[in-house]
């Protein structure tokens, strides 16, 4: 572990929140065919199912304070195994970041900047992500805390205007009009999507003071996400109907687009777009940080700035 820094409870909660809030914001509609109106319930349960795995990671770090999972792996299974796992871990992080960048760039291209080349959007996002993590985990955690709160406020403030005119209770009742098998399929898909948070936790465990004792910090972060995210899905379904929600991409932006209160309150998709952008920056930063930290460990902390540049490049090039 290069940095001897301990994070606070709020910082851990918001980092876990941001780490979970990755590609799930785009892929959650993929379960709609299987779970239909119960999408928000399946999402709630699916996210909660990640908790045992998260607690297990913290439990592993209990006897190795200040160490990441890779330090523990090296101590237990040797350097060779650790290197192989590290390479796979870096590749997964790059893949997650690349998907995130592509999804967000497509969102921008669809709704806002039709003529801007995608590589420019991605370049700026990767630059900001590199900037976020370049000054250490403490500053990164603080920035993520602010960005997450701002993003959440953006999202829910815009949907306040949807009440009560655009909210249709009949769209979510009856809730369980789906098969048990389809529901289980949806829950497992969401568990897989939410397990992105485990990637960050594998590194974050070294920065949580007495991780075995403070496992509730991570649990709180996941429960917080399990409440907020299904609430967002519920609002979208209540506005658009489950049939429409399953057939369109970027449901949040589309739902906000139809809100209009009198003459002046309209175009609220701009707020949702802000939220999506904060998520894209936060999630790309998380992936970049994970990949960079592991790369630093693999190369014995050799030239961190160069490694950061190369990791950022490894994310940017496949994205384009």
């Amino acid at each position: 572990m290069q940095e001897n820094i301990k994070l606070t409870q709020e910082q851990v909660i918001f980092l876990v929140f941001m780490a979970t809030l990755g590609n799930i914001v785009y892929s959650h509609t993929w379960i709609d065919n299987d779970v239909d109106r119960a999408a928000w319930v399946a999402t709630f349960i699916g996210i909660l199912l990640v908790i045992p795995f998260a607690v297990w990671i913290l439990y592993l770090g209990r006897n190795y304070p200040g160490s990441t999972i890779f330090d523990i792996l090296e101590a237990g299974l040797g350097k060779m195994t650790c290197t192989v796992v590290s390479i796979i871990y870096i590749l997964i992080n790059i893949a997650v970041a690349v998907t995130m960048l592509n999804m967000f760039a497509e969102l921008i291209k669809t709704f806002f900047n039709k003529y801007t080349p995608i590589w420019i959007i991605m370049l700026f996002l990767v630059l900001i992500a590199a900037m976020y993590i370049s000054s250490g985990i403490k500053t990164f955690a603080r920035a993520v805390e602010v960005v997450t709160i701002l993003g959440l406020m953006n999202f829910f403030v815009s949907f306040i205007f949807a009440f009560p005119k655009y909210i249709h209770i009949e769209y979510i009742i009856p809730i369980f009009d789906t098969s048990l098998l389809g529901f289980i399929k949806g829950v497992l898909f969401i568990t897989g999507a939410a397990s992105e948070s485990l990637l960050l936790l594998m590194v974050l465990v070294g920065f949580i003071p007495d991780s075995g004792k403070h496992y509730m910090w991570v649990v709180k972060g996941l429960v917080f996400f399990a409440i907020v995210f299904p609430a967002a899905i519920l609002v979208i379904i209540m506005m658009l109907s489950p049939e429409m929600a399953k057939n369109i991409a970027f449901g949040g932006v589309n739902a906000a687009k139809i809100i209009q209160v009198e003459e002046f309150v309209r175009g609220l998709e701009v707020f949702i777009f802000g939220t999506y952008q904060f998520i894209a920056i936060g999630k790309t930063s998380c992936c970049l940080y994970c990949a960079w930290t592991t790369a630093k460990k693999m190369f014995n902390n050799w030239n961190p700035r160069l490694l950061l540049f190369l990791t950022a490049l490894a994310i940017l090039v496949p994205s384009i």
Partner: protein
Amino acid sequence: MLGLINGIAIILWHLASLESFGVPYLYPLVPFELEVVKDTFIRLGGLNKRLKLLAPFNRMRMGNGGIIHTKGKQDGE
């Protein structure tokens, strides 16, 4: 719009990275401390405690140059 949000994100990062004499610029909002937040907007109480961030184990301010507190301790109060 893209540039505006990017700009906001950069400013937020800059604010989060600033520190003044060891106290983060955004404190007590980030890192969050409810006990201090209440004094950010309206001054409630006598402000007789030090910042938890700077003196986590010696919270009470001395007050009146420490004479009363020192005396009190010596008298066994």
